[in-house]
């Protein structure tokens, strides 16, 4: 296949830093490739992606070179670069600049001076291909995250690029929306023969689409080749093991001999059936015991909330929170999860109903008193930052709880692996580090109840595990946790009880295993893989292979 992009001995060091972020990267990308760049947070994935398009290249020093069709990327003219190399960013909100979808699609074409007639043709084609016809005249701010990311992709596609670079494009989307986006990306790749290069943490869906996997570790390229062999390589490394998606991880954990690892539930089931492998449940783990929490009651009764523009978002929600419980609320974007959490935290007042912490209505409590008992982590933690250094942020928050001891701050910095960035401004941290700082800010006041909105959003699997373990310790010490999450595996692994939120209504919470066992769609990949044999299995360690 024709070589499109070539990186030769590329080393890149950010301005003001002494250690290179990328070291000696040599890589070829051919026309028609679907390449997934994999690696932990800070491994250099995004930095590598940004080296492939001159407008995105960060300030720093570079050795070696990157070429596009034989021309150094830095020497490409702006219009060639814009036209042939498309880029879609992680946060769908930052790309749009125009007021409506149709204007946003026209924006790159206007930039390159296309005539109105040519633009009409391109927009019609792209809108039809991606099914955006109904959205064309909607204001950008009325779109959901998934629709917005689709518009961002369409805006890039309108220029008929040769290559599309995507930086964790589904990190901010719920699983169903992410799957829809990836299906469309596959269509773009398969039907338009456009080369795709993307970075991703959540590998369970994307690896099935890729023909190549590139693994970065601490800025070094340590693997470049077929996906299956790459996963075997990752499973062998303890630090990378959490990155291996559940289906191939199941085959590796159970030591099932296959020539190529299945990447989807369907192929996994087919392989199991072909080989006639049988599984049985392992004896259940003893349930976790937590320290009895302080005696309090948190109840929501008949809570209804309506936004002037979007209408009803919460309908008569009732919830009785058991002290010391860990409840996961699962639901699609827009189902009302975040709004409910903000109401429970006393940050928003509903039109009807009451939320009471003991006998106090939460939004009537004095802010200082409420902060001592309830902590809230938003899904955009930067909106809770003050714009100071990490240490200053934590110290100020600890002061609100009346305990600004340096020891507590240092403890949390160590726990959340933030010591190295303690003196950096909170806004300069990576997305994952910002999420960890948000978590540390929520925990430093030592609340009775912790409300978490998408606590694993944007985190790589290893960091997610770290967060889970920290929360598990706090929960064992008596902390009550209510979290809204799309992350089925995280909820299944850590929460005590789970419930669905749908159309502004909250279902009755169920014990976690029962919840996931009874669900057909919203359950773990391992459950979907082996539930015909072991209906209660949620993880690969829940089953063992029967020996005949």
């Amino acid at each position, binding site marked *: 296949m024709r070589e499109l992009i070539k990186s030769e001995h590329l080393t890149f060091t950010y301005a003001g830093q002494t250690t290179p972020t990328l070291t000696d990267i040599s890589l070829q990308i051919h026309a028609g490739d679907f390449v997934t760049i994999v690696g932990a947070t800070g491994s250099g994935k995004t930095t590598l992606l940004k080296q492939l398009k001159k407008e995105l290249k960060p300030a720093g020093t570079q050795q070696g070179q990157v070429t596009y069709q034989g021309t150094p990327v830095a020497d490409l003219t702006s219009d060639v670069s814009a036209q042939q190399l498309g880029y879609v*960013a992680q946060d769908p909100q930052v790309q749009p600049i125009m007021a409506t979808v149709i204007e946003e699609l026209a924006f790159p074409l206007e930039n390159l001076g296309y005539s109105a007639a040519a633009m009409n043709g391109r927009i019609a084609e792209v809108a039809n291909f991606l099914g955006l016809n109904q959205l064309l005249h909607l204001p950008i701010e009325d779109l959901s995250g998934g629709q917005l990311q689709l518009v961002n992709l369409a*805006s890039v596609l309108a220029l008929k690029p040769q290559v599309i670079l995507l930086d964790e494009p589904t990190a901010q989307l719920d699983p169903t929306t992410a799957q829809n986006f990836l299906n469309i990306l596959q269509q773009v790749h398969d039907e338009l023969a456009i080369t795709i290069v993307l970075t991703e943490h959540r590998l369970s869906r994307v690896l099935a689409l890729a023909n190549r996997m590139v693994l970065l570790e601490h800025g070094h390229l340590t693997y470049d080749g077929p996906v299956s062999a790459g996963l075997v390589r990752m499973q062998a490394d303890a630090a990378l093991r959490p990155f291996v998606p559940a289906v191939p991880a199941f085959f590796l954990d159970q030591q099932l001999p296959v020539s190529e690892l299945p990447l989807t539930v369907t192929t996994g089931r087919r392989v199991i059936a072909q080989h006639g492998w049988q599984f049985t449940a392992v004896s259940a783990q003893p349930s976790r015991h937590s320290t009895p929490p302080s005696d309090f009651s948190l109840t929501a009764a008949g809570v209804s909330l309506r936004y002037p523009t979007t209408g009803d978002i919460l309908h008569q929600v009732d919830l009785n929170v058991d002290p010391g419980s860990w409840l996961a609320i699962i639901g699609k974007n827009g189902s009302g999860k975040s709004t409910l959490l903000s109401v429970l935290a006393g940050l928003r007042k509903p039109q009807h109903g009451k939320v009471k912490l003991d006998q106090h209505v939460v939004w009537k409590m004095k802010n200082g008193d409420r902060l001592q008992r309830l902590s809230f982590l938003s899904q955009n933690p930067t909106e809770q930052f003050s714009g100071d250094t990490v240490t200053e942020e934590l110290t100020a*928050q600890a002061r609100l709880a009346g305990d600004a001891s340096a020891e507590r701050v240092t403890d949390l910095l160590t726990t959340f692996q933030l010591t190295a960035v303690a003196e950096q401004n909170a806004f300069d941290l990576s997305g994952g580090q910002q999420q960890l700082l948000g978590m540390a*800010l929520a925990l430093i006041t030592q609340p009775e109840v912790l409300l978490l909105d998408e606590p694993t959003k944007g985190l790589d699997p290893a960091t997610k595990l770290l967060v889970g373990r920290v929360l598990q310790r706090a929960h064992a010490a008596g902390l009550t946790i209510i979290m809204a999450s799309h992350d089925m595996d995280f909820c299944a692994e850590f929460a005590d009880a789970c419930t669905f939120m749908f159309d502004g209504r909250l279902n009755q919470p169920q014990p976690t295993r029962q919840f996931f066992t009874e669900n057909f769609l919203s359950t773990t990949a391992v459950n979907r893989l082996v539930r015909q044999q072991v209906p209660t299995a949620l993880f690969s360690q829940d089953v063992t292979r029967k020996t005949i």
Partner: protein
Amino acid sequence: MRVGIFDELTFFSRVHPLVAAGYFVELFTLLLIFNHLLLTLALFAGLSGLCSWYFNRQKVLSTLKGVGSLMVLIWLFNVVLNQTGAHALWVGHLGSLTFRVTQTAVLYGLTMALSLGGMILAFVLFNGVITTPKLSYLLFPVVPRLAMLLTISLRMVNLFTQKFRRLVMLQKTRGVVVSEGSWRLRLQKTGRLLRILLIDSVSSAMETAVLMEARGFGSKKRSHYQTYRWQAMDGAFGLVSLVMFGLVIGLRTFGWGWTGDITQFTLINGSDGWLAVSVILFTSLPLMGEVGYRVCEN
């Protein structure tokens, strides 16, 4: 900034942007050239009618609530501060100070309040009809950079507003509550919120700027996507509104609708009736257009 504030299938939203802009220029001119109570009342009533027709009930009520309170304030200021008018309606004494409420102050205050209220309603209507794409279309041939800047700025203002609302809510978790404490403290906390807003927005705006460049912004002379076809109804509406406007201006040049000496203010002047009918007709033109547009439906 919001697009499609009212039904996109109305006559007024379909009329060519150039014609709609012309109508608003004429409307704003009329709001500035009269100081007779009946005329400002006619303009205010006409604009209220237009807003009620085009916008939803909630928007009309919230607009009128805001405009009404401002109008009451203006009227009160006039009544209190204008002590030199004719025909005292009430005289009060406080020590050596004499306080008079005069007919001039009451009438002039009402006229000013209606005039300003009408101006705000006209802007609200303008914002609903001349949406950002239309404004950009009008400005692009003359000042393309300004057109682009305007589009970006309007989106940014919208994002800032949304972000600020979220910050007000979420910063409570950091002890920043703008509705608690003394005024001085509240002011300090609002300043702190604005600082956070600025840091956060600058960081996102820089990323947006890079992504604009990545999509070819600045690489070539920009073209423009939006085109609007000139139709017969545009010509008819533009012509009728121009004739009506010319007629009203003609009458104004005879001194109708204006009193130079405000102490001579009266409730109604002899010539106001004809002018009031003319301005009502002028403000009703879009509604007449709607009737015509519906009559011409298949």
